[in-house]
């Protein structure tokens, strides 16, 4: 028996939850949040930050909204608690739930229940709130996916419905579709939203296995130190603790984690082995009966460190003499390369105009409200590891098989969870390998849900972190002739996957402009920070940012209007396909038309008056402008440029399974899980469009990876609008052909005369001769006599689509052959106001014109844009992972890492422009990043415009009032001296 039992005081309480009185015994320290989720299985209330900032855990207590993470369950004794499950159901939603689903006021659904509870509390006190009152009431609820526009609108709609006296209202069915019209381009209601508004999304933390154990981490307090001695005995003696796993123990169980950069001497493990390389790095994993005890024990682990000098600044890290993180590797350079496309030197020597600037793009990221979580469950009998995780990782089964040293077909990664946002960052190879390894080590199921501290300091989820020096050479008309870009990127302590983001920009390095020559000189530095992770655009955003900023700078230097200089440099619509100097080929676009539309949308004729009016109110008004392209559907070639020996890749496939069952219902199986992109809805639309069936006949399922055999590259690189369409058309085409053949046999006519029309196969020469879809499906399974000779029974087809462009691998000097399949484009025009005294920055208005070709579902695509702008405002003005000079992280909570709320993100005016993609069967283009990527340069451009009276040049993000004040003071001193 274990000796050190901590006396855990418990008490009996009685709660009235959603109208039912429940008596239960709880530890006095257990939060209301955990009791609702764990003891009462009300998992619609979500864990977000556990310090009261994000709002995911909102419930009503005695009718008023409160944070259930900041309330002990015992404090709710005798009180009336209402959770999302108590408001309504999918079948009978309350007006807020119905309105949120109707307006698609969400993406991943993770913030939705908390948001709805806050709104419910508001409407119960104020049935007719103004927009300002709604925004104020929801300002303590963060959404990272779609922002707040549709949320605010939903509350207004629900208030109207409630005032009209309707108690319940229906969630619109997905068949909101005009009969006879194509399903493509329809604002079909989002299928996923129905479960999200009812609190029925199923996220990794909602999965509970029998006898599952829980993990908490012992974190390094030092940024760089040798581990001299580890004593886990006190922790292991605590009652409820099963094992304290050290780095050494885990490294015996599993191999090092795969990295995408060729670094044979940089060994990356989930737990530090011998040395810690950043503050917060996981040193031991405490495995216990519950997370509370695991945290108690983590505090009892004694670690003796030999502290080393920290390496914090990436430019310092690569200088000779800097302390080295990985001694065997010999330096802190993870990767360096000079890629040269054209005679850049000569052009710069001869060009009449040269501009130059340095930029600092500080670390920020997607920071989804659901942290990374993973469950590992080793089945010793079947010799199979099962993993559930909130991930969006391609090839994870290969990686896990490698680290566990087992065949791939012994790895089952479930792909059926809802993921509470990702924005690219939820790769989690470390976390998944950890739970898989520990599960096998202990022969128990183990769960690890990062808490916010573990996530912010060591979740390997930070975005790019770059220092740029950029030069542009131009002719006398402002036409840019060459770019010279030097970039030092801070990869963090291990290269992981994120470090590859430094190469992706070569696929669109000249943006929408005709620039003939480029030098791209890059270094990826290893520093004492958590690893960089892919984040929206895979490294493209900062590159697009500095390009837009240098174009602005050139415009200033030459006194050319910002719109005019862009127009002058644009690739013209008749010049596509257009090959940029790196070898990447753009498929199509109409950049001048989009810019023109945006200027009109933003009322550019009123800017002068608005400036004057703002000035009188004590504000400087600034208008921003950015024009950014978004590559979609990669081939993996950036990996091949970065590490050709490791990644001999020239394509990127995607699989699908189409099953028409004996009743005629269609199940389409995908091989990946989604993190808010509404794939179930768009795939349903594609299926309905392809087969002419109604949405109620279609179900989208997910196959476990490896075991159920749907090859996938997951939701990366804005690829699925194309790859799923291609795969579906292949598999669906075969189904259609088979069903047509059966119908021909039934009708006794040659198959060439059969057409599928509105749910029936008919003889197009005499339409009265027909057989229904359902009958043909039935025959396919039950009537061999109606099958053609040699035809297999059943309607089940797998297809794997290959990337539509034929590629050859990049040349040794880094020249691409081709590029991403397709390129979207958008123009952003924000209007900001800066307070002349306090330097507070407010985004007042925001205009976007977006061209992503044919839009499959405008409601979903609009949400992508709104949400992207939301994150862009964060990256431009608020969000930064700061470190002090000793490598101590300073933004470990949401009190210091600032997420924009309803009061920071304005309404966005959006217009779509459609330039159909020539390479897509439906003309669609990527839509994932056109909100985020252009937002940061646009906002910075606006702030700089606002600060024109003081002549400030903004060269870092985020740009804050503090920085503006510093720059303004300096400028003032400069002029008075």
């Amino acid at each position, binding site marked *: 028996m274990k000796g050190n039992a901590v006396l855990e*005081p418990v008490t009996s309480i009685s709660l009235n939850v959603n109208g039912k009185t429940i008596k239960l015994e709880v530890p006095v320290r257990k939060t209301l949040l955990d009791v609702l989720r764990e003891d009462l299985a009300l998992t619609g209330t979500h864990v977000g930050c*556990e310090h009261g900032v994000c709002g995911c855990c909102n419930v009503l207590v005695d009718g*008023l909204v409160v944070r259930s993470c900041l309330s002990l369950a015992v404090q709710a004794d005798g009180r009336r608690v209402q959770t999302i499950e108590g408001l309504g159901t999918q079948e009978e939603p309350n007006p807020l739930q119905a309105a949120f689903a109707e307006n698609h006021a969400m993406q991943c659904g993770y913030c939705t229940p908390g948001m709805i509870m806050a709104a419910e509390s508001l409407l119960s006190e104020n049935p007719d709130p103004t927009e300002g009152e709604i925004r104020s009431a929801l300002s303590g609820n963060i959404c990272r996916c779609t922002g707040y526009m549709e949320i605010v609108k939903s509350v207004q709609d629900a208030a109207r419905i409630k005032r009209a006296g309707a108690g319940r209202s229906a969630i619109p069915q997905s068949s909101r579709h005009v009969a006879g019209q194509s399903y493509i381009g329809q604002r079909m209601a989002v299928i996923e939203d129905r479960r999200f508004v009812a609190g029925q999304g199923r996220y990794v933390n909602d999965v509970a296995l029998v006898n599952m154990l829980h993990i908490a981490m012992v974190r390094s307090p030092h940024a760089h130190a040798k581990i001299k001695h580890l004593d886990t005995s006190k922790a292991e003696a605590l009652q409820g603790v099963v094992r304290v796993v050290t780095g050494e123990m885990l490294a015996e169980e599993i191999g090092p984690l795969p990295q995408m950069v060729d670094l044979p001497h940089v060994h990356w493990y989930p737990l530090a082995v011998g040395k810690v390389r950043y503050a917060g790095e996981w040193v031991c994993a405490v495995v216990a009966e519950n997370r509370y005890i695991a945290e108690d024990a983590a505090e009892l682990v004694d670690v003796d460190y030999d502290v080393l000098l920290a390496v914090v600044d990436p430019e310092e890290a690569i200088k000779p003499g800097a302390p080295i993180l990985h001694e065997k590797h010999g330096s802190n350079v993870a990767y360096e390369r000079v890629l040269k496309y054209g005679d850049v030197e000569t052009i710069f020597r001869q060009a009449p105009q040269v501009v130059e600037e340095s930029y600092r793009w500080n670390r920020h990221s997607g920071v989804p409200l659901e942290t990374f979580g993973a469950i590992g469950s080793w089945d010793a009998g079947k010799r199979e590891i099962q993993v559930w995780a909130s991930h969006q990782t391609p090839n994870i089964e290969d990686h896990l098989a490698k680290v566990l040293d087992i065949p791939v077909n012994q790895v089952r990664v479930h792909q059926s969870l809802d993921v509470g946002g990702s924005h690219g960052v939820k790769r989690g190879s470390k976390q998944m390998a950890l739970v898989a390894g520990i599960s096998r080590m202990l022969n128990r199921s183990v769960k690890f849900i990062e808490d916010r501290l573990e996530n912010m300091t060591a979740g390997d989820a930070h975005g790019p972190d770059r220092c740029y020096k950029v030069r542009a050479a131009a002719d006398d008309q402002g036409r840019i002739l060459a770019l010279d870009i030097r970039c030092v990127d801070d990869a963090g302590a291990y290269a992981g996957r994120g470090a590859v983001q430094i190469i992706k920009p070569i696929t669109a390095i000249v943006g929408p402009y005709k620039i003939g020559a480029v030098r791209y000189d890059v270094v990826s530095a290893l520093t004492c920070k958590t690893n960089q992770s892919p984040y929206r655009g895979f490294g493209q955003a900062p590159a697009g940012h500095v390009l837009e900023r240098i174009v602005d700078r050139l415009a200033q230097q030459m006194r050319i209007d910002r719109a005019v200089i862009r127009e002058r440099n644009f690739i013209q619509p008749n010049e596509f396909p257009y090959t940029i100097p790196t070898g990447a080929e753009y498929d199509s676009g109409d950049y001048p038309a989009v810019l023109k539309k945006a200027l009109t949308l933003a009322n550019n004729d009123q800017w002068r008056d608005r400036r004057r009016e703002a000035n009188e109110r004590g504000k400087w008004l600034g208008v921003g402008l950015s024009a950014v392209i978004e590559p979609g559907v990669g081939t993996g070639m950036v990996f091949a440029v970065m590490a050709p020996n490791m990644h001999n890749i020239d394509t990127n496939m995607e699989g699908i399974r189409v099953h028409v069952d004996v009743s005629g219902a269609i199940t389409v199986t995908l091989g990946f899980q989604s993190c808010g992109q509404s794939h179930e809805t768009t795939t349903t639309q594609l299926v309905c469009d392809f087969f002419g069936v109604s949405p109620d006949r279609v179900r989208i399922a997910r196959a476990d990876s490896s075991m159920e055999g749907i090859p996938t590259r997951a939701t990366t690189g804005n690829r699925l609008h194309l790859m799923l369409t291609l795969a579906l058309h292949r598999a669906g085409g075969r189904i259609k052909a088979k069903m047509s053949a059966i119908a021909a046999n039934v009708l006794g006519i040659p198959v060439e005369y059969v057409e599928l029309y509105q749910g029936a196969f008919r003889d197009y020469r005499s339409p009265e001769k027909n057989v229904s879809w359902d009958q043909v499906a039935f025959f396919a399974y039950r009537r061999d006599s109606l099958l053609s000779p040699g035809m297999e029974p059943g309607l089940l087809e797998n297809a794997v689509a290959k990337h539509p462009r034929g590629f050859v691998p990049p040349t040794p000097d880094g020249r691409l052959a081709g590029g991403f399949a397709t390129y979207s484009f958008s123009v952003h025009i924000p209007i900001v106001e800066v307070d002349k005294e306090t330097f507070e920055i407010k985004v007042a208005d925001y205009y976007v014109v977006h061209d992503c070709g044919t839009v499959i579902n405008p409601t979903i695509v609009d949400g992508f844009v709104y949400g992207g702008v939301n994150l862009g405002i964060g990256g431009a003005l608020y969000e930064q992972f700061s470190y002090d000079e000793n490598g101590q992280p300073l933004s470990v909570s949401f009190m210091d890492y*600032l997420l924009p709320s309803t009061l920071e993100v304005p309404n966005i005016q959006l217009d779509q422009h459609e330039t159909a993609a020539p390479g897509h069967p439906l003309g669609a283009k990527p839509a994932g990043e056109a909100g985020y990527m252009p937002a940061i340069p646009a906002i910075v451009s606006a702030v700089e415009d606002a600060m024109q009276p003081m002549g400030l040049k903004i060269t870092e993000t985020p740009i804050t009032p503090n920085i503006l004040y510093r720059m303004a003071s300096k400028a003032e001193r400069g002029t008075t001296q």
Partner: protein
Amino acid sequence: MKPPVFSYSRPATLDESLAMLRHGAESEVTVLAGGQSLMPVLNFRLARPALLMDINGLKQLDFVERENGAVRIGALTRHRALLTNDLIKQLVPLMADAAAYIGYPAIRNRGTIGGSISHADPAAELPVVLTALDAQIVLQSTKGKRALRTGEFFTGPLVTARESDELLIEVIVPSQQPGSGWGFHEVARRHGDFALVAAAATLSVDSERRVRTVTLALGGIADRPIRLHACEEMLVGHEPLADRLRKAILDTATGVEVNSDIHASADYRRHLARVLAFRALLDASKRAVSASPHGGGQVDGSRDWK
């Protein structure tokens, strides 16, 4: 981020609570009110009390009463009440104004004034407002009661003069006098965040529109809320014209070490302190002058602060 082990008690009466505090003084009793400051501290495991004494059962501490030219506000009064209670809106509008800046509804529904004041975050709204209002903070123990001015009560960052056997039971706030005005301004990174700097002012004028009384307090710049007495003294007896307000602020050195963090440097905070002090005084002056029976007229409100 789960709270550490502690014992829990919910006394039913004030006497019981005070007895518990006295007997438990040695073994670290922590008072839990709304929990909106304490619970994050516990979840982050920055405190590990042996006993958590939950005072939410002490309904007698949840009151707002008018008494002898003052408003008494019980420690268990929720922030929400500061926005909705008519006595507060009428008699201490400065508090009602400032309360709108505290967090968000979910925080205001639970958070209490006693909790916020006891937590003594130097950038929180209520401490600076109470400082400007010359409020008294009433502490009680089994030995008796004492009332402290904010200058005595707030002794450092998250530190107060409350003894471990004492419970903060109420604050006594002087009612606003006729002919007086108030102003509150703050700059935070986002609405609802703790202020980078907050300024609160009260001001009354005589029949000649000269300043009769004035208070000015700042939060967020030092380790506790501060009063700018020197600035106040420069204004008394003079008409509260914008230029004079500005000059008084400029000539006043705060004499404190100014906070600096990732959101705002000390220089920026000093700058904000001047801007916000001016805005708060200006609002207070305008309100005082227009409320004054002999007043009327306008105060110059140009804002070209440099």
